[in-house]
């Protein structure tokens, strides 16, 4: 029973990891290419880590939680990576005057500010 669950999680994780990297190779636009690794690959690695947790919990006396630590860290940092890369891409390719102004006062966060003082 547990072995079936681990196998299903492993196959799911491998498929999602493959789909993520294939999308990175195949999609056309840089902003489209941002989607594949940050969502599919994160989910695939997450399934692999859950499988490792389930497998190690059956073996060692105290349940292993280090894999879940990595899982939480990856799920927290993947959106931040996507955000920073999208900002860098916008900053390099889209002219500042071509962007619509943001709501409220102030400027877009990706536009470089003049140095203080």
């Amino acid at each position, binding site marked *: 029973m547990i*072995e*079936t669950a*681990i*196998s*299903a999680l*492993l*196959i799911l*994780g*491998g*498929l999602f*990891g*493959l789909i*993520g*990297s*294939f999308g*990175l*190779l195949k999609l056309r636009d*840089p902003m489209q*290419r*941002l989607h594949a*690794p940050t969502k599919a*690959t*994160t989910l*695939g*690695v997450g399934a*692999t*880590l859950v*499988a*490792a947790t389930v*497998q*190690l919990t059956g*073996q*060692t006396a105290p349940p*292993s939680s*280090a*894999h879940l*630590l*990595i899982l939480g*860290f*990856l799920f927290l*940092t993947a959106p*931040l*990576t996507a955000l*920073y*890369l999208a*900002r*860098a*891409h916008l*900053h*390099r*390719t889209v002219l500042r005057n071509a962007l619509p102004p943001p709501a409220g006062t102030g400027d877009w966060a*990706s536009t*470089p500010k003049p140095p203080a003082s």
Partner: protein
Amino acid sequence: MLSFALTFALTCYALAFAMNLIQVVRAPTLPDRILAADTMVINTIALIVLAGIATGSALSVEAAIVLAMTGFVSTVALSKYLLRGGIIE
């Protein structure tokens, strides 16, 4: 059944790693290359964890933790460099 699933997952992540290598070499823009390198780090974490399952040891988790942290920090630092021309403001 577990050994088949393990082999399948290892093959999938090895193929994904090869695709990331191709993407690092022939990506058109610089943020694309950073993204491909970041995906490569995540796939390496998955490979380390799978190797840990295959050998049945829990010792490789520390390597995966360190790799996750350095991968995130290096990606953010490179993006920050492209954005502002400097890392520390």
